[in-house]
């Protein structure tokens, strides 16, 4: 236990307000000048069940949830109770306490609501407390809340207790509550806060444990943003004004944020009958001249396979977002995994192509969503933002200036009515919308309603004006032109700076290759490994298709061995790398995790040292090592 950071875990039942309380807590500390990072754990049910959120607080930038945690605030499963006093559904009342002990650091703090939880129900509790040197605070948060307001204000009492023990200036929290609560609710919450705070100060030795929040300062204004927020905001800034979707965890977050914000900027959101319709609506709106998006998670995205192919064949720009969760089928709805990579790369029949970005954090999610729209509209091709439940839901502080960008409503390669007058037309009178001579494979499109621009968009192979054709020469020309786009996009992306992330010392013996949500955790592991005198660097790849072959090749060639870190069981990203590079199979080994929880930095450090440096075998079954082809 050090002064460096607080990792605060608030645990309770789904519906207890765990998410909103932790969000306010994180925001208050961000305002106080600290760096924050949240991690959510929740079951696939509406009320009750064990859920927690961790807020990691540090004076230095934080990129992952960290290892373990040092402060537990255990609330009761209040909403799992039925209206009858003290009657519970199921037997989960002690879970906020019992389920969380395994990961609590030595010397850590436990605060529990003695009005709802009884430690006698947990075997070995006292022995474990003694063994681990935990500091236990049993406080009747429920009664304090009831005395001054309502029982739901237990959360406020818990936060007040946290402030008292971890030396957080109460005003930091209070001012945020004042901003976010109506006066009628704010006043009783303040009473609850003060009572709980004073109780700790008067009845316990609050200074005993060595757990405190460090002081911090930001150079510039920060915002607390999730990956889902960032994707939605990237889309809005890029002029996206149409979204269609069907709810599915965890994609629903992006859909919700867009639906709440679009009417304010004169946009349209449509919740429709299924995901086939959702993607088809996005294609229809884009065809009619509006920037449009849709999205889903694995199972829903499967249904989008045919509209995705239609968008490619008709060269209709569209952006789809795919929020990965553990599969196959409906898998584990609320748990992260990175196993839809191949699904997203290869779904849809024929020689079909799409562009795929996999951002690793909120800042990248904003920038790459914008880039996905630019590429889609410039090249008239579907593009996909691939992320997962982890980066969709975790909150982190990002400089507000990241979002201080100009809007862009450029529809890309379209033709105006004036240009249409001189444009080549088919003898049938139609505009040659799918000409073979297009630059970079792109042929400008007209929009329905424009004079002189009528054409037929079709999922069948077609002539330049859109008429259906099975002519072999035309077929080859059209396929070549559509494929030419991918080469042009590759060249375009090579001109971008900082989409793929290099981290660590340039001269290194080993490399770690990763993608998406695991990147921040890998970066933290890289720091620790280099501190321990291992020379390791990282390449976090965000461009999944077209693949940055040159950049990855140079990285692999610059080191002796490469460990590929990803959250799935079949090493899909390693497979993609090997396929695209066409060699280096002997250099690439894998560290995999697929139990529903993301990597922690220590697991990557352990995996690397044990398997690569020491050539040993990983203990336990949390992570799995798959050696390189030559081993």
């Amino acid at each position, binding site marked *: 236990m050090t002064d460096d950071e607080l990792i605060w875990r608030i645990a309770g039942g789904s519906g207890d307000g765990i998410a909103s309380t932790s969000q306010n807590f994180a*925001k208050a500390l961000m*305002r106080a000048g600290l760096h924050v990072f949240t991690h959510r754990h929740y079951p696939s049910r509406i009320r009750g069940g064990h859920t927690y959120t961790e807020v990691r607080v540090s004076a230095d930038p934080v990129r992952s949830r960290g290892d373990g945690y040092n402060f537990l605030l255990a609330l009761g499963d209040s909403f799992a109770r039925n209206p009858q006093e003290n009657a519970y559904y199921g037997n989960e009342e002690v879970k906020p306490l019992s389920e969380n002990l395994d990961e609590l650091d030595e010397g850590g703090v436990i605060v529990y609501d003695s009005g709802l939880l009884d430690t006698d129900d947990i075997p070995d509790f006292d022995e474990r407390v003694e063994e681990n040197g935990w500091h236990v605070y049993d406080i009747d948060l429920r009664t304090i809340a009831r005395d001054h307001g309502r029982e739901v204000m237990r959360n406020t009492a818990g936060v007040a207790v946290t402030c008292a023990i971890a030396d957080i200036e109460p005003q930091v929290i209070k001012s945020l509550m004042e901003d976010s609560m109506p006066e009628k609710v704010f006043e009783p919450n303040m009473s609850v806060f003060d009572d709980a705070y004073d109780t700790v100060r008067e009845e316990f030795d609050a200074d005993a444990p060595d757990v405190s929040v460090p002081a911090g300062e930001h150079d510039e*204004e*920060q*915002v607390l943003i999730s990956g889902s927020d960032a994707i939605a905001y990237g889309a809005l800034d890029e*002029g996206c*004004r*149409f979204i*269609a979707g069907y709810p599915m965890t965890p994609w629903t977050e992006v859909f919700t944020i867009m639906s709440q914000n*679009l*009417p*304010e*900027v*004169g*946009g*349209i*959101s*449509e919740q*429709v*009958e*299924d995901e*086939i*319709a*959702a993607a*088809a*609506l*996005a*294609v*229809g*709106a884009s*065809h*009619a*001249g509006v*920037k*449009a998006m849709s999205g889903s998670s694995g199972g829903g995205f499967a249904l989008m396979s045919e*509209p995705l*192919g*239609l968008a490619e064949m008709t060269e209709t720009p569209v952006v789809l977002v795919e929020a990965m969760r553990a599969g196959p089928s409906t898998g584990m709805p609320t748990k992260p995994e990175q196993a839809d990579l191949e699904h997203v790369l290869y779904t849809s029949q024929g020689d079909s192509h799409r562009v795929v970005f996999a951002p690793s954090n909120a800042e990248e999610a904003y920038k790459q969503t914008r880039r996905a729209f630019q590429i889609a509209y410039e090249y008239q091709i579907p593009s996909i933002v691939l992320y997962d439940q982890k980066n969709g839901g975790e909150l982190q502080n990002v400089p*507000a200036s990241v*979002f201080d960008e100009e809007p862009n*409503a450029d529809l890309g390669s379209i033709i105006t*009515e004036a240009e249409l007058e001189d444009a080549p037309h088919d003898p*049938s*009178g*139609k505009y040659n919308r799918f000409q073979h001579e297009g630059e970079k494979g792109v042929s400008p499109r007209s*929009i*329905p*309603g*424009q*004079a*002189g*621009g*009528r054409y*037929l*968009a*079709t*999922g*069948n192979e077609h002539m330049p004006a859109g*008429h*259906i054709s099975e002519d072999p020469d035309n077929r080859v020309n059209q396929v070549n032109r559509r494929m030419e786009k991918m080469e042009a996009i590759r060249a375009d992306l090579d001109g971008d700076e900082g989409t793929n992330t290099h981290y660590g010392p340039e001269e290194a013996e080993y490399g770690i290759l990763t993608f998406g949500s695991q990147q921040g955790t890998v970066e933290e592991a890289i720091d620790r490994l280099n501190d321990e005198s291992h020379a390791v660097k990282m390449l976090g790849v965000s461009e999944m298709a077209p693949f940055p072959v040159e950049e990855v090749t140079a990285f692999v060639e610059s080191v002796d061995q490469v460990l590929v870190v990803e959250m799935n069981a079949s090493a899909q990203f390693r497979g993609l790398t090997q396929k695209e590079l066409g060699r280096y199979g002997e250099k690439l080994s894998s560290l995999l995790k697929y139990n529903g929880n993301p990597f922690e930095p220590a697991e990557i450090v352990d995996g690397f040292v044990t398997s690569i440096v020491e050539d040993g075998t990983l203990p336990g079954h949390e992570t799995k090592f798959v050696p390189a082809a030559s081993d």
Partner: protein
Amino acid sequence: MSAFSAIGEHAEHDRNEYTPGVEPQPTWCPGCGDFGVLKALKGAAAELGLSPEEMLVCTGIGCSGKLNSYFDSYGFHTIHGRSLPIARAAKLANPGLTVIAAGGDGDGYGIGGNHFIHTARENHDMTYIVFNNEIFGLTKGQTSPTSPKGHKSKTQPHGSAKDPIRPLSMSLNAGASYIARTAAVNPNQAKDIIVEAVEHDGFSHIDFLTQCPTWNKDAKQYVPYIDVNDSEDYEFDNTDRNEASEMMFETENVLNEGTVLTGRYYVDEDRPSYQQEKRRIGEIPEEPLAERYFDEEYEWERVYDTFLDKHK
């Protein structure tokens, strides 16, 4: 100045304007009912005074899906069963467009049945023409959702054990606000109905009986039909939901016995279209969304100015 000057261009239009100058020629079989739909649509478009470029005709897959290859306007030949979601989004994006979707009975009542129910339920302002020939044509003669019970085909060798879909009743129950049935054997009635359907503000469903001389020689669409709106035997008020429902039931019971009834079955002018409802609650902009991308004066909102405060 609109970026879409073809929209609202009120000029005299000749039905031949909707015929492509050269190829493609229709690949439909001689005697196919689909020719009747094409003819009726051209006549209706001319009568409505629509410029070819303000029309977007979205089709599905099958013989009927080729309609927009032979009808000269903007067209989107989509995939099996998906013409409706694409069409209704185009209409939301640019309400100035006249949007017509078309497809076969398999496309509309089978694979796209879910979209049909929901587009009708939401009462999108558009017209949907279903080519109903009670058979899968382009895949060579399989039983379709409207084929009569007992219909034998290569995929139902013992005869279909299923009752056919009742398209009119289904449409009424789903919420369509204009429902008619017409037939290729009477292009004049068909044309009049298409004109009314396009002018109607809401979801217009036309069950268009089209004969398939190649794969469905048994179908009864060849027999003389009765226009229920003209016949004294079938006097009913087609704005009355219950009466319309009864008439539909009667029609759908006798269709396969050789009595073909056509006409306007249900017209609800009072129900607001989906677009009107969305506009009323502030979820659709007053000006056509698609226009905004061509408006150089428009000031695009930035997240930084608009939404970021709540994250600070």
